[in-house]
């Protein structure tokens, strides 16, 4: 779990970088950067849950 979360986070970073390269228009660029941040947030949540002590993970 903890490694899965940490592997997902770079995917969000590359999504954000791809957004500024591929979309010159401001709205779609902003939307894809936001999506990249959302992917990173999901990865962070998974990593945090993966690092919780086993008996406290509910």
């Amino acid at each position: 779990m903890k490694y899965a979360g940490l592997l997902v986070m770079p995917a969000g970073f590359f999504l954000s970088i791809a957004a500024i390269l591929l979309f010159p228009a401001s709205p779609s660029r902003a939307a894809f950067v936001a999506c990249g941040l959302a992917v990173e947030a999901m990865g962070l949540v998974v990593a945090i849950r993966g690092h919780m002590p086993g008996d406290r993970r509910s």
Partner: protein
Amino acid sequence: MIVTSPSLSESDFNLAFVLLLLAPLAPAGVALLNTGLGRARSAAQALLGSLVVVAAAVLIFALIGATYADSWIGVGHVAQIAGKRWNWAGTGPWFLSGFDTSSARAQLATLFEFLALTLAVLIPWGSGADRWRLSAGAATATVLAALVFPFFAHWAWGGGWLAQLGANFGLGAGFLDPGGAASVHVLGGLSALTIIWILGPRRGKFPKEGLATAMPGHHVVYVLFGCLVAFIGFLAFNAAGAMIWLGAAPSQLPRTAIDTLLSAAAALAATFVMTRIRFGKPDASLCANGWLAGLVTSSACSSLVSPIEAIFTGIVAGIGIPLLVEFLELAVSIDDPSGAISVHAASGLWGIIAAGLFAPQPGQLLAQLIGVATLLGLILPVVYLLFALLNRIVPFRVDSDGERVGMDLHELGGGAYPEFVIHRDDSYR
């Protein structure tokens, strides 16, 4: 307040240099905070460790890191991707050779980076209090100084790809980090998170049943005095950063200083009220964290926002601190004695975003968000990987006997308060 970078006059150079001489008060204050928020039986190790991690970091940075961090001398290592120039590393000389002959701005920039690094490596040191071995702390500081800080500092400050987002992609003025919110505080705070993950909580902190055990700091006077000391250092960092990285004129620095003060004051007031409502009485250590969170937020945006906006950013940081500290400890079982994740990482991220929210030029918010994405999506996993590998070579965590008797006796052979009785911890029985 975003202006182009003119060449420094001699009086500007003198002012920036004097400001930078005051900047070490920020790491001094953070070291006092870290020590006070730890336990009495680990106090000497905590404060000696602050000196050790700083010494290890600056030596490695001088030997290796400064080469990649700085691009004032060379043009930087550039990759061409999709027709754009991505400057990903500096091309300074090795071992600071030729430093004397570099420009005044280059010398100030390098000095700023040295001092910023000392603060960045102290932030995770406090989070590993009472269980992190001194040698392992020094080893992580060298890794940060050699492999992580120089690259991000170059990207944000040294004309790297983050700083060039404005020129290459029309995103405002590019990623802005005048006081080191990203390069110092978020980097340090995220490093603290990885350290806590690798170390695990202190023994007895999270019993199998019931709530987390309260382990309050041993010296709240250190903590609160550390806040006052750090305030001077943050003023110096923010003002010097505005001059060096934004090209601010000396006449613009009083506004920067006032914004810094307002942000810290608003954050303290918000945390004071929040803890008063939540617990019936204000909590001293949380208020100290609130003050520091306001300072961290100001390091992102004090040169870029109006005084009223500085107050707003401070209030948000101050409200967030007690909530986040409680959430991290009670909901996700993160044992962070110094509160570095909330104070440095979360407040730094908020400051970076706030700087984009209040910026007048279009695209600035997106540039700041790309910086946030880089810190969370690239720096955090890389730091975790490096530290996890390092933990195989230099085990981070002290053995259970060392944790029981305290880090002072175990690592140094003597305590910080030899005439005091240090009580046994019943949770180990």
